[in-house]
């Protein structure tokens, strides 16, 4: 065990208070304290200082903080209508697949659907058919029928 001088010992008081000395250091610290009244008094001063802080009396504001809090709270705590359900781990994959499906249908509708009709007059006819609410025409759009063909126009009543 190494012998510590006063400076070393006092310099480690904070570590001692934080129980941050190794077993060997603690031995040196205690050995010096036992033999050195001024350092012991210094340690005692630090300990008293800590006690003063700890004994800091409980403080209570006489004013009613609760009234101020109460006035800021909503009258009725909002309650959740639906129970919170934890989403499965890969739930986002389902959402992604659904979004991709919609995107594909959208693209097909405009590229392979009536938008791909050969000329502008046909487009007008198709739009007119839609406006009339022609069921067969809509059905062909959705089932992937060749909207640009003459068959389509016959079915749709053109």
């Amino acid at each position, binding site marked *: 065990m190494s012998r510590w001088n006063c400076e070393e010992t006092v310099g480690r008081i904070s570590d001692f208070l934080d129980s941050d000395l190794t077993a060997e250091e603690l031995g040196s610290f205690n050995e010096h304290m036992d033999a050195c009244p001024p350092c012991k008094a210094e340690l005692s001063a630090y300990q008293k200082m800590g006690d003063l802080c700890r004994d*800091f009396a409980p403080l209570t504001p006489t004013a009613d*903080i609760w009234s101020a809090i109460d006035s800021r709270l909503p009258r009725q705590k909002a309650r959740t209508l639906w129970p919170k359900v934890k989403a499965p781990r890969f739930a986002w994959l389902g959402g992604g697949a659904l979004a991709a499906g919609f995107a594909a249908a959208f693209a097909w509708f405009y590229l392979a659907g009536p938008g791909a009709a050969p000329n502008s007059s046909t487009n007008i006819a198709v739009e007119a058919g839609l406006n009339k609410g022609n069921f067969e025409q809509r059905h062909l759009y959705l089932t992937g029928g060749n909207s640009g063909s003459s068959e389509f126009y016959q079915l749709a009543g053109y």
Partner: protein
Amino acid sequence: MGKQELNALPDGELIRRAQRGEREAFEAVYERYHSRLYRLLYGMLGNPADAADLTQEAFVRAYDKLDQLQSDGHMYGWLRRTAVNLGIDMIRRRQTVRFESLDQPFENEEGGSMAMEAEDPSASPLEELESKTLQAAVLEAMATLTPDHRAVVAMHYLEDMSVDDVAKLLEVPPGTVKSRLSRARDAMRRYLSDYVEG
């Protein structure tokens, strides 16, 4: 359910009831913890009006987050973390602190006048005077510290938090807390020499 019965309930039950919309249950949580929170904030900020305002703010935030609080969780731990973060934000915004007398009335956020009491119901007038003198000295000593050092002292001594717990709350390494604590102790020990020597 009466106030006394509510006050006897554990935190978890109070949180469950408050989550169901029972305002009285939340008030019981307030009754249980506001003094402790206020004391910590007063130690950190050195100003009764700020401590009262942030105590208020911490409870309002707790109410807003009630649905997220676990009924088996530690209510005070959550409140303390919120209060410390609010205190640190305020300290950093201001970077100065003025400790005010315990006897002096102060104005709260709404402009109302408030006074503050140091609780010691058993003390004689002389003991009370000594106690107030000592408290004033401790507050003055804390006022000499930097905001970061003061926050660490308040948490460690007023809240009896370990170095590791303070470090976690402040999100700094334990060594930083030890170093701040050591410097703060040295400064306070020097300032309080009349009270701690001999």
